[in-house]
């Protein structure tokens, strides 16, 4: 197998200027007028052709810079970045789309931007339109499209040309479930044909599904590189850890930013491995902010790792008020004496909402991951144990 992507100590530093003219003055006067900002430093990795690399990390960790560097739109300012073969990138959604022009015109432009000559463009065009499923909208101006149609068009252009290296940034999240599946299938097919995939998503489940390797970026550096499952788990742990540790209380209570709005600062589960029927206790603490007690509620959702929503309920709908435990600190504990979930991996969503149930003050998504094991088949199969009984048949004949 040959190497498709080779990074050696690659990094990107942006120069920040107070004003655009400073960049010109710097050149004329030969005196530094910028502040360096290292968006990415010292990244060394290699990806074999046909392999797949997931990219995870917080916002601002350098993921976009990393992808732009791979896509060739941002040259590295240190080290080297080598890509073999034609690359096609799906970076920022809607880049280069001209809203006044039709989908067909925009598809032509997109293909031209990816380095296709006229004959190839005309050859690929029907396939792009078929994949994007725009129907009669194909000849309408793009400004009339829904965001889902835009992402279908853009993805179709990026994926149809069968690149050697396909780079996909957080874009698929806009499409509907059907298209997400279709585009993931397409990426799998491209991978199957021997191409290399670089995939960045906040949907860690998709990263784990799509990629064999993953890199976790933190503050512009590689925090971890390796098997996708291990990297995603480690990243998830770190996110959970931050979610569970109380955010600086003084900051929340102060009059500074966010002081007026309630915030979650502790969400903890009594354990992370359960047996079906175990005691399940979730403790939640939040700051009250400057809202009346009756206007702060907690909602929780249990999700299985395949995104199935198992159950959701809130203090608002149960008519339970939160309790004041300290000055400005509210708490509530959710208990299931006999956890009815069957074996599987689950996680929680916790929402801090107002009394209308519409406004969200704060939320934790994909937190408190836990695993449930069941004693055996006698507890049933599926997601939950449902209360049931077997009724005796009245006219049964004694055996």
């Amino acid at each position: 197998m040959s190497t498709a992507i080779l990074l050696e100590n690659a990094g990107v530093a942006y120069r920040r200027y107070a004003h655009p003219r400073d960049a010109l003055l710097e050149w004329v006067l030969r005196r530094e007028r910028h502040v360096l900002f290292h968006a990415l430093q010292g990244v060394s990795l290699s990806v074999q052709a046909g392999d797949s690399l997931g990219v995870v990390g917080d916002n601002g960790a350098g993921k976009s810079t990393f992808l732009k560097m791979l896509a060739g739109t941002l040259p590295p300012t240190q080290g080297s970045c080598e890509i073999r073969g034609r690359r096609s990138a799906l970076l920022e959604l809607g880049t280069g789309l001209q809203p006044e022009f039709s989908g067909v015109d925009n598809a032509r432009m997109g293909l031209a931007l990816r380095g296709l000559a006229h004959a190839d463009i005309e050859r690929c065009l029907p396939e792009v339109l078929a994949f994007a499923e725009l129907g009669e909208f194909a000849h309408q101006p793009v400004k009339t499209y829904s965001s889902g149609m835009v992402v279908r068009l853009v993805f179709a252009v990026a994926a149809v040309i069968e690149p050697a290296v396909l780079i996909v940034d957080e874009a698929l999240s806009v499409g509907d479930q059907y298209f997400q599946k279709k585009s993931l299938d397409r990426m799998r097919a491209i991978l199957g044909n021997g191409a290399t995939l670089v995939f960045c998503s906040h949907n860690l489940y998709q990263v784990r599904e799509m990629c064999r390797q993953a890199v976790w970026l933190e503050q512009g550096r590689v925090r971890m590189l390796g098997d996708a499952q291990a990297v995603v788990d480690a990243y998830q742990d770190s996110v959970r850890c931050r979610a569970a540790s109380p955010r600086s209380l003084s900051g929340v209570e102060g009059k500074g930013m966010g002081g007026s709005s309630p915030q979650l600062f502790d969400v903890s589960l009594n354990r992370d491995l359960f047996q079906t029927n175990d005691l399940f206790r979730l403790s939640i603490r939040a700051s009250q902010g400057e809202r009346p007690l009756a206007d702060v509620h907690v909602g929780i959702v249990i999700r299985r790792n395949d995104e199935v929503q198992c159950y959701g309920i809130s203090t608002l709908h149960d008519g339970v008020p939160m309790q004041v435990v300290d000055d400005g600190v509210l708490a509530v504990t959710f208990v299931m004496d006999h956890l009815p979930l069957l074996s599987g991996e689950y996680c929680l969503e916790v929402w801090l909402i107002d009394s209308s149930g519409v406004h969200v003050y704060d939320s934790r998504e994909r937190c408190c991951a836990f695993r449930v094991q069941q004693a055996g088949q006698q507890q049933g199969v599926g997601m939950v144990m449902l209360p049931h009984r077997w009724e005796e048949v009245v006219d049964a004949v004694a055996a």
Partner: protein
Amino acid sequence: MNAATLTLLGQLLRQDLRERYAGTVLGMFWLLAQPLFMLLVYAVVFGEILQLRLGTATDSAQFTAWLFTGLTAFNALAEVLTRAPVLLTERRELLLNSSLPPALLPLLPVGASLVLEGLSVGLLLLWLGLQGQLQPLGVVFYLPFLLLRVVFSLAFAYGLAVLGVFLRDLRQMMPPLLTVLLLVSPIVYPLTVVPETFQAWFEWNPLAQLVQGYRVALLEGQFLWQPFLALLLLASGLLGAALWLFQRLLWRARYVL
């Protein structure tokens, strides 16, 4: 430049021209309608109503052609000068998020100006033909001056495009600057009406020489060698400097786009 780059340039140029008229009833016909309208208005207002005979021409149709030729050259340059400073900032997203070669962008206003000028000159030739004033060698002698105009345009397009990223004021400066340029050059008036004491200054104006070259070629069917060579030297020098500037400053421009 390979086939793919040419295709991309063609797509960009097509988009660029269509962009202005997207959604209009006449569409691309506006490209032709504007110079046609201008020609007719000049003919009626200056020729018939005001009876202006400022040029060397003797009748109103000749004056119209004389004025129209000068303005054709000026408008083509103005197209490039007004658009160049915003070229890169307008396509910021594309430059930062796709592999579009930035050096293609300054070619767009130059290409558009060629289309506009081509249509204008076509109309002019038609007009001259109708008047029976068509010079057989006019087009041949016009082409070298068109080349000069394009080289000047390229120089300004590359230079102003990259400088416009740093100096955002440039885009505001262009329209008044063009008005001044129009007034200090013998475009709507002939050089002969300028007082003796100022004439030397006017002769040093490259735009005056260029417009003169256009007029002598198209209207009189003659070729002005001296101004052509002098202007060619100047234009090539400017283009060289502009390309050097573009290359040196482009990577810095990315940081402040």
